[in-house]
């Protein structure tokens, strides 16, 4: 296993293997020749728009669509009642009005009985143009009977709280998972309780408890969600162009939702304008475009606008955490326990492995070595949009990493210990890997202290602390915040991980053509990660074929083998491994063919990059290109060996991979206004082997900006009437080039021992790790005012309130 090496350079100037290489994709993107879903225009295509509920909770009394239907240019107006009348030969209910979610719940495609969140889909208009479709929405008359909305997860479990899911016969607002569970636990409760009791009784120990909220945010990719559906009534073929991070999984879901034969469904995910988890779910709009095509017999395009995106498709987080940590006064961590009230919105639409209903939140014990940990996650329904697992969260490790890194800083403040020293004292040591965490996860590899010291060196940590002391003496408030995170990514082993029963292994196919150039067909779906470049590099690394000679095909279920898609940083850990293994399979076959050509035994051959040669006689050999031609030629092959040089693999990962990193933020806070300026941000990531360091660094940069956004400005809040207060980019603030500093990156490389090329995945690391660094820095800056914690987003108003000792619930409309 090679972590970093100098690859030879191809004729086109690319590394034959790993190394920074310009992206193949960029050639079309810089010319404006990308092909996104809204760029797809089929002959005879119609447009559509969705009427959405203005209420968070209301009974639908009546819907009158007659005026809309009479508008010239309108082809159809579809309501929930219409959908109820369309029979569906499916295992999942007998009509189209409801559809399954990825968590075995049901979600209304169009509301029939009640609306359950503001922005919920109520009616669907199909028209000649998007302008006419919007006009028609104004003409639909819906009579609602408003009901009390449940906007606060803490209200949801009150005995007198209105029941949101009466459609399921529920009598309270608890989410029930597929196993009948209403609370999701991990760790040893008895041992953890005993450790806390002992610490409480020990004068040399402390227990620190903190309520920490990770408020509701939204991935908000620049391209919103959309689809173009065409059901050919003659052939029965459904072609769906759609913004999907998981085209194969979506194909199966549509087969179940629509009752269509799966071989007649073709999902095409063309270029995707950012996903970040927003494009994992199957949304009513996608299904409605299919229904629209069934009804009209023509292609139908649906594209959500920005408000629809922020209000209806895939929020993230909304975890209310009460966390406690027990430690000695010298800073040795003994135990951690957490209770989470998880706000799932009106439908449990969480996209995550079935057996992990709280996602991978249970990795919450973090990067530290201590024996006892326990948590309980209680999920509830509220009158908010469904979703929960999105926004580069690594299946909720974002919430976990934020919680533990905030908690460790609270402990540091309590025992008056430098937060760097406290972390260094407790980090898991290199010789402890593979490390079994107190909640049962097996971390694969790491050199935590080394990575942290690299970050501290780049930051000039001791000098920063000196500067901070000097500034405090003059009344200036500078803060330094550290976050050390460990993720578990690359879901996952198919024995334990599936989504809707689909095991999380990935197929892949590699064909080497007679001239030695090849096509790799992958199941995962780039949303900007550069798969067309990096996957060619993996094949190049294994076979010595220049990366420019390998084309990567993705985003079309008719063209690629089955796999679960791109989310949870799984492309490199799962499909990247598959690419390596399928190329090695080709290499092994090439050896047999070379041996036949060289008239020797395969055992007599040795491999050097791009070539098999005879041991002890390096001149006698065959290049992979020569072997490719031989494999398609008339060379007599040994008994049982087929011609050609093609292979397929289904890769089933033996474990997750565990990328990690240490981040340090330096901020300046104006105590008069509460304004935070992130002056520096140092990020040292260890994601194992780096296939293309340029792309790895780009992924990290993007995630760091997410961290600035979530820590300082992004928020989907609600008022008590259920109005979404973050429903446009005027209200939901995203970081610009002004708020983002010039990122300072470093790296260590600790390969994963169980991944064929040692790569761990990095797509979400920075989003997971960076919010805590920013918040820890801000709290560090204002700690002289007696502040130990304040919830994100740390807007000027919220920082000012914290300084004044008057914190408020940031996720609700502020009433002072």
């Amino acid at each position, binding site marked *: 296993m090679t972590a970093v090496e100098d690859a030879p350079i191809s004729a086109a100037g690319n590394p034959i293997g790993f190394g920074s290489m*310009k*992206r193949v*994709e*960029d*050639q*079309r*993107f*810089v*010319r*404006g*020749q*990308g092909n*996104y879903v*809204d*760029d797809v225009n089929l002959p005879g295509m119609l447009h559509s728009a969705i009427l959405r509920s203005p209420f968070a909770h209301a009974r639908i009394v009546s819907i009158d669509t007659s005026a809309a239907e009479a508008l010239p240019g309108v082809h159809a107006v579809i309501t929930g009642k219409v959908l109820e009348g369309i029979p569906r030969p499916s295992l999942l209910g007998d009509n189209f009005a409801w559809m399954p979610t990825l968590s075995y719940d049901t979600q209304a495609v169009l509301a029939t009985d009640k609306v359950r969140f503001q922005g919920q889909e109520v009616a669907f208009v199909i028209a000649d143009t998007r*302008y006419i479709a919007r006009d028609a929405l104004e003409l639909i008359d819906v009579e609602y009977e408003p009901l009390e909305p449940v906007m606060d997860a803490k209200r949801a479990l009150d005995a007198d709280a209105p029941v949101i899911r009466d459609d399921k016969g529920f009598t309270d607002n608890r989410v029930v998972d597929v196993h009948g569970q209403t609370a999701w636990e991990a760790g040893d409760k008895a041992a953890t309780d005993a450790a806390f009791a002992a610490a409480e009784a020990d004068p040399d120990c402390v227990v620190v408890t903190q309520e920490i909220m990770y408020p509701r945010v939204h*991935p*908000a*990719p*620049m*391209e*919103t969600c959309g689809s173009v559906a065409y059901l050919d009534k003659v052939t029965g073929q459904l072609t769906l162009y759609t913004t999907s991070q998981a085209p194969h999984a979506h194909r199966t879901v549509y087969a179940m939702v629509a009752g269509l034969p799966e071989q007649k469904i073709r999902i095409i995910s063309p*270029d*995707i*304008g*950012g996903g*970040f988890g927003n494009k994992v779910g199957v949304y009513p709009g996608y299904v409605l475009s299919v229904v629209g095509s069934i009804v009209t017999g023509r292609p139908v395009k649906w594209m959500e*606008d*920005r*408000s629809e995106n922020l209000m209806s498709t895939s929020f993230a987080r909304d975890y209310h955490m009460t966390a406690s940590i027990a430690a000695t006064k010298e800073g040795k961590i003994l135990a951690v326990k957490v209770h989470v009230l998880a706000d799932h919105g009106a439908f449990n639409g969480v996209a995550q492995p079935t057996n992990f209903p709280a996602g991978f939140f249970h990795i919450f014990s973090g990067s530290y070595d201590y024996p006892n940990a326990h948590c309980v996650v209680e999920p509830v329904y509220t009158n908010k949009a469904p979703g929960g697992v999105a926004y580069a969260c690594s299946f909720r490790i974002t919430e976990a990493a934020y919680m533990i890194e905030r908690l460790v800083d609270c402990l540091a403040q309590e025992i008056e210990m430098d937060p760097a020293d406290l972390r260094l004292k407790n980090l898991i040591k290199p010789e402890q890997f593979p490390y079994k965490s107190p909640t049962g996860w097996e971390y694969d590899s790491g050199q935590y202290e080394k990575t942290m010291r690299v970050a501290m060196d780049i930051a000039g940590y001791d000098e920063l602390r000196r500067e901070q002391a000097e500034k405090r003496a003059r009344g200036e408030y500078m803060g330094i915040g550290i976050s050390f995170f460990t993720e578990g990514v690359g879901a996952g082993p198919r024995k334990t991980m599936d989504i809707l029963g689909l095991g999380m292994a990935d197929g892949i196919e590699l064909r080497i053509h007679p001239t030695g150039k090849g096509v790799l067909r992958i199941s995962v779906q780039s*949303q*900007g*990660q*550069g798969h067309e470049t990096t996957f060619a590099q993996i094949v190049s690394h294994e076979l010595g074929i220049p990366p420019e000679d390998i084309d990567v095909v993705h985003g079309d279920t008719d063209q690629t083998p089955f796999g679960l898609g791109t989310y949870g940083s799984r492309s490199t850990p799962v499909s990247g491994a598959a690419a390596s293994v399928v190329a090695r399979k080709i290499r092994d076959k090439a050896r047999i063919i070379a041996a036949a050509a060289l008239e020797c035994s395969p055992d007599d051959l040795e491999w050097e990059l791009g070539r098999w040669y005879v041991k002890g006689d390096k001149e006698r050999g065959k290049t992979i290109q020569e072997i490719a031609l031989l494999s398609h030629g008339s060379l007599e092959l040994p008994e049982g060996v087929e011609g050609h040089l093609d292979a397929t693999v289904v890769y089933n990962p033996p474990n997750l991979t565990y990328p990690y990193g240490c981040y340090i933020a330096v901020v300046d806070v104006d105590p008069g206004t509460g304004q935070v300026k992130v002056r520096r941000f140092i990020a040292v990531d260890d994601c194992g082997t780096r296939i293309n360091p*340029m*792309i790895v*660094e*780009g*992924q*990290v*940069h*993007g*995630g*760091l*900006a*997410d961290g600035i956004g979530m820590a300082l400005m992004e928020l989907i809040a609600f008022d008590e009437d259920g109005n979404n207060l973050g429903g*446009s*980019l*005027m209200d939901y603030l*995203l970081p*610009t*080039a*002004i708020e*983002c500093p*010039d*990122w300072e990156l470093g790296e260590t490389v600790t390969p994963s021992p169980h991944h064929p090329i040692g790569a761990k995945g990095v797509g979400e690391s920075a989003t997971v790790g960076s919010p805590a660094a920013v918040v820890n820095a801000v709290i560090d800056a204002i700690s002289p005012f007696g502040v130990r914690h304040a919830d994100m987003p740390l807007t000027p108003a919220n920082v000012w309130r914290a300084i004044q000792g008057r914190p408020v619930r940031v996720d609700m409309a502020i009433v002072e």
Partner: protein
Amino acid sequence: MQLTITINGTPVTRDVEPRMLLVHYVREEAGLRGTHWGCDTSNCGTCTLLVDGTPVKSCTMLAAQADGHEVTTVEGLEQGGELDPVQKGFIECHGLQCGFCTPGMMLTGRHLLDHNPHPSEGEIREAISGQICRCTGYKNIVKAIQWAAENPATSEVSA
């Protein structure tokens, strides 16, 4: 109403509704889909193009307002088969990932360099601060525009 908008040097005449947005005129009527749409509220800048050389958010401008004016889109950046230095810079410096905000970012970068051939990092950040990128964290966009400043087209050097 009938409009004539010169897009990338070519007059495009269409009979459209007065309420049609410029972004839809460019995408649907002229068929130039390199200009993307992102937010409706002038916040994200994905739809930025140049009207008479000035960056404009085309989701908040009526096509009718551009009648008789010159529009430059991403498709107009490449000249004589040669990429604009800003386009080259975005490739060289990994200034894009998903590519969705990229056309607008490049046009703003082009406008900045036309008026300030040697901008500071701060001036570049200020220039693109009306546009949002969710992938790159901006660092490499800044570097891409710096690269273009350091590697101007031959025509710019001789001019």
